[in-house]
């Protein structure tokens, strides 16, 4: 019997060995795949087990964390949530993250390996790094001015620093409070449903994710293309342009809002925003040169990230001459985000160079140690420096004597361009009021800010909706805020 007892003992030993081997298989060799399974809540629990890093504006956090002592423990809070929502986005236990909260998530949640003091250190200690902070390029005063300026109206503002591409303001209205999406109780679900149902689309970031017909503000691009291509050599020379202008190859007659546009010089036509002159100018420049200039400004760029993706602004490259004429005054298929039009104004202010816009100035560890800085961005020459100089003159005159007088700032040189973009079937929609501009304080060597403002439906009679009336004051407030806060530098 002894032999058989020994055999049975060996059998039991085998069973126990099998258990240990199997446990090692799961706990060592397959552990990673189980840890990474999306249904494994441990990742979420660890992720929300510590306060999230903050997003800073002007050194001050605009985000915070609230300890709920629940399973997903820390919830996101927002300071002035609606004001910064187009930048921060939301961070929700239920609905994930968006915008900066999304693109910087690894850093904010503490999972970014860069946060670890030593490689593999965290694997060893099983600890998580505290979330890092994201310092934005935003200018607090400019952001507030843009938000206050838009008020209850639907619209967006984008402001950038022309020499660097720093985004100083990014506002979209109506906005929402991302805090309403933090956490995972029933109220969050209701907020989510309400925000998605809302016809005004408060979660849509109009400054970078919505494209509008740019209307007359696109004449900046057309003028620059005409000057660069040599179609116009003298700003003061009369152009050969009829009023009304019959679109080439069609019987459609294009008219102007104001009289006296016939054969006007580029300088006067820009000041008074003559459609006929610029439509013909675009047609004269041709598809190739118009396209080249528009794309140098950033149109048709599908890869722009700031760091979250920006909807591509479009300039149709397969058009006939009539369509090209309409495209050249910002109609037909020409569409632009407010950020794109701010880049157009910035290029003019910055000697023709377009700097890639960006929102993240630097990232730091929770201790404040810098991890990454924005560094220098590639620049693209959108037009000759001499053309840029002439464009600045044209834009300054719009503000001094033309349609953009409401953007004038004492003690500063301001250049601008108004726009009123028609849209909807048969142009039935309330027109969009546009204003793009830049400003240089008298004490400064270079322009400090370029702005684009779009107001979707100003509370005014249709006839009075205009870039000059509704959008220019908002742009001025933003430019004043930037000049005022950078005056001491």
């Amino acid at each position, binding site marked *: *019997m*002894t*032999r*058989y*007892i*020994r*055999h*049975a*003992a060996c*059998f*039991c*030993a085998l*069973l*126990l060995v*099998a*258990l*240990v081997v*199997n*446990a*090692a298989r*799961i*706990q*060592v060799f*397959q*552990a*990673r*795949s*189980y*840890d990474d*399974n*999306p*249904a*494994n*809540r*441990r990742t979420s*629990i660890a992720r929300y087990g510590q306060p999230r890093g903050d997003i800073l504006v002007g050194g001050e956090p605009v985000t915070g964390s609230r300890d709920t002592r629940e*399973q997903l423990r820390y919830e996101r809070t927002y300071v002035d949530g609606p004001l910064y929502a187009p930048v921060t986005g939301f961070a929700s236990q239920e609905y994930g993250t968006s915008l900066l909260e999304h693109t910087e998530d690894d850093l904010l949640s503490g999972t970014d390996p860069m946060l670890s003091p030593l490689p593999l250190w965290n694997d060893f200690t*099983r600890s998580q790094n505290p979330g890092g902070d994201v310092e934005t390029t935003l200018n607090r005063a400019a952001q507030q001015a843009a938000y206050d300026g838009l008020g209850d109206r639907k619209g967006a503002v984008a402001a950038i620093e022309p020499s660097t591409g720093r985004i100083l303001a990014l506002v979209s209205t109506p906005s929402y409070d991302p805090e309403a999406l933090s956490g995972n109780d029933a109220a969050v679900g209701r907020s989510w449903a309400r925000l998605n149902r809302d016809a005004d689309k408060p979660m849509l970031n109009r400054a970078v994710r919505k494209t509008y017909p740019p209307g007359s503000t696109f004449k900046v691009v057309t003028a620059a293309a005409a000057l660069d291509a040599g179609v116009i050599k003298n700003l003061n020379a009369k152009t050969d342009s009829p009023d009304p202008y019959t679109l080439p190859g069609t019987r459609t007659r294009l008219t102007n809002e104001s009289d006296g546009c016939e054969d006007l010089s580029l300088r006067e036509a820009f000041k008074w925003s003559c459609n006929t002159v610029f439509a013909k100018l675009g047609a004269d420049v041709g598809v190739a040169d118009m396209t080249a200039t528009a794309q140098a400004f950033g149109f048709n760029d599908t890869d722009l990230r700031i760091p979250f993706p920006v909807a591509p602004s479009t300039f149709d490259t397969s058009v006939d001459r009539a369509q090209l004429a309409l495209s050249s005054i910002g109609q037909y298929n020409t569409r632009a985000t407010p950020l794109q039009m701010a880049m157009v104004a910035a290029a003019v202010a910055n000697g023709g160079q377009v700097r890639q816009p960006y929102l993240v100035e630097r990232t730091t560890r929770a201790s404040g140690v810098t991890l990454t800085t924005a560094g220098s961005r590639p620049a693209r020459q959108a037009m000759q420096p001499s053309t840029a100089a002439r464009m600045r003159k044209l834009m300054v005159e719009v503000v001094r004597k033309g349609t953009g007088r409401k953007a004038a700032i004492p003690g500063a040189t301001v250049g601008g361009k108004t726009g009123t973009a028609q849209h909807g079937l048969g142009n039935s929609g309330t027109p969009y009021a546009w204003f793009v501009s830049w400003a240089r304080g008298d004490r400064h060597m270079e322009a400090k800010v370029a702005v684009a403002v779009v107001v979707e439906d100003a509370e005014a009679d249709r006839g009075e909706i205009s870039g000059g009336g509704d959008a220019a004051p908002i742009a001025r407030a933003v430019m004043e805020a930037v000049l005022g806060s950078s005056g001491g530098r």
Partner: protein
Amino acid sequence: MTKAGITVVRAGSPAPAVRLPRRRGIELALIVVAVFLSVYGYCDVGLAKNGTVPPGAAGYGAGLGVLALLAHLAVRLRAPYADPLLLPIGVLLNGLGLVLIYRLDLETPADRAAPTQLVWSTLGVALFIVVVLLLRDHRILQRYSYVCVAAALVLLTLPILFPAVNGARIWIRIAGFSIQPGEFAKVLLAVFFAAYLAANRNALAYAGRRVWRFTRMQLPTGRVLGPIVAVWLVSVGVLILERDLGTSLLFFGLFVVLLYVATGRTGWIAVGLLLATLGAVAVGRLEPHVHGRIEDWLHPIASIEAGEGPNQLAQSLFAFAAGGILGTGLGLGHSILIGFAAKSDFILATAGEELGLAGLAAIFILYALLVERGYRAGLALRDPFGRLLAVGLASIVALQVFVIAGGVTGLIPLTGMAMPFLAQGGSSVVTNWAIVALLIRVSDSARSQYDGQVAP
């Protein structure tokens, strides 16, 4: 008188018995270590979860210490030659189980199981003491083998009269208490199997006709084999009716192991495996409950891919994976995710998550030692009944650990059983103390009559 009872040398022994060292001091020292480790774990849980030593730590330590000490005194008094490892392993596993249950109670404050478990542990230790004090010689049990099998069958069939809980009909509920009679039945059946096989092993090994003409295999006569096969079939059949698959697997394995050890016929293993395969295929096909378990085992994350969220086995695997090699530390895992059976069937998942592969291996080694010590007692004994009983009891522990641990780690289909000593469950902890008491008794006999030779 007591000494005489122990040092009796069996008639016909060729060599005079030599007494092995008693080693009761070592047992006491190991018990102190076991109690200390348990109290340490208890404090660790409190510190990790609340930042303070739990208020009951002193009481818990004192309670466990006194129980262990009383058990030790009983052993010292009545089984002085008993294996010194058995009792400390029982104390440590029981203490660890209480720590884990207390730790899981913190996640479900509305449903505290640790106090009840402590009461049952006390009852278990009391039973241990009673058995060690009153059962002077394990051979007495041989006389009661038919009482045992009758009691076992009654216990097994009783739950059919009671409503099913979570798909299994294995509980008796009386006045708020729930008892799992299958747990007690396994010890009783082990006694019966051992006694019956010891009495009939010659007949089993040599009598009977050939199955086929030219094979070496011979079936024992029906008169010998009949009763035991009947008992076994009834118990396994009843358990399948009750959907207590773990226990039926355990009884099956126990039967095959004891039959093999008693007869030395490898054929029994082949027959056993064949029957097990047939049974598993039949039950797996016919029974939807079992079929689901097998599907879960083959594809543990299928429910996730189907968008239904992780099932309990997947959650268990997640927990083991989260533990890694060193574990998250007691109290720092997320056992709450495992769900309703976290304190019973799936308690090992918490051990795996919070103690890691290292802790899990340590627990397995404790069980392995317990099993090995049982087998060792079996080897050293001279009476066939004692040998088979020791082997049976040790095999129960080994098979049960394998079935449950293999189930929750995805090695075999999940059958739902209690991890000996660790899991919440009164019947289980009482039964396991009874097993340890019987092992103490047989090891005492084995070591006190040891003659320097291994029996044939």
